């Protein structure tokens, strides 16, 4: 339910967040080899504000 409300408050249509996450993954991947299995995106609620937390496990940098 919390998740639904965070989506409501941010006016996120279905699929939009997934698009963002894919793009973020693509951008970070240009700079680093990533452990894709452990990449995490979390939409968390702090009071009534949302925070998008992205966690990338970095293996090595790409030059």
């Amino acid at each position, binding site marked *: 339910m*919390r998740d639904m*409300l965070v989506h*409501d408050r941010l006016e996120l249509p279905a699929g939009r967040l997934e698009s963002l996450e894919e793009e973020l993954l693509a951008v970070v991947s240009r700079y680093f080899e990533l452990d894709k299995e452990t990449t995490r995106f979390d939409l968390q609620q702090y009071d*009534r504000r949302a925070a998008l937390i992205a966690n990338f496990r970095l293996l090595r940098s790409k030059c």
Partner: protein
Amino acid sequence: MSGRVIVITSGKGGVGKTTASANIGVALANTGASVALVDMDIGLRNLDILMGLENRVVYNLVDVVEERCKLRQALVKDKRNPNLSLLPAAQTRDKTAVNAEQMKKLCLELKNTFDFVVIDCPAGIESGFQNAIAGAEEAIVIVTPEMSAVRDADRIIGLLEARKDEIEQYRLVINRIRPAMVKNADMMSVEDVLEILSIKLLGVVPEDEEIIISTNKGEPVSGTDNTRSGLAFRNIARRLRGEDVPLMDLDVQSETWLNRIVKFFTPVRV
């Protein structure tokens, strides 16, 4: 001396705004404050019924705003408490009959006469809601512990947040909670709701059949001593006046062994 203008809102219909308005109004008046109850559900008025004053309505809020009568002519004094007056809604108009400017002017006039102006807001987020909150400085958000009500309350809170300069404080009343269902995990708990909505709690009111009876009689429960919901509303009124009143113990009474034996031997009627 200026009164406090409080709007009672929810978003979702049927969660208890009008019931809360009537009961909080009565409870506040019984503490000695002067209270004006304002029915802003233009076209679908109900506050007069809950107060048992439907036969006393001569003029209404739209008459006042359109200057067909003076404010004091439209205010209906409560039968039981002279501190309490009702400004009824019109039944034959709709929510476009009043605008925000008119509402602000009306609230100004009311707060110069009364300690508390309690505004019953209609359901929704359109002009009815916008006009009802126009003159308010405080809001009470009514929610029941279920997903659709919580979702709508969340939207309303978002709209109230956007008006932080006018509406200085908004707090939550969780209405119609059923402790037994919460215990069984069949209903959201107070903590569940607070965690999601993240605003200050003003009070919790248990589900109570007495509310239905009181509505039909036109006698709000907070005016008499013998109901749990009445006590909850009286506590809310005390907190509004600044008193620190702990939440009622809503725990389910545990069954005593004697109750269980009696139940076992009582024939079930079918």
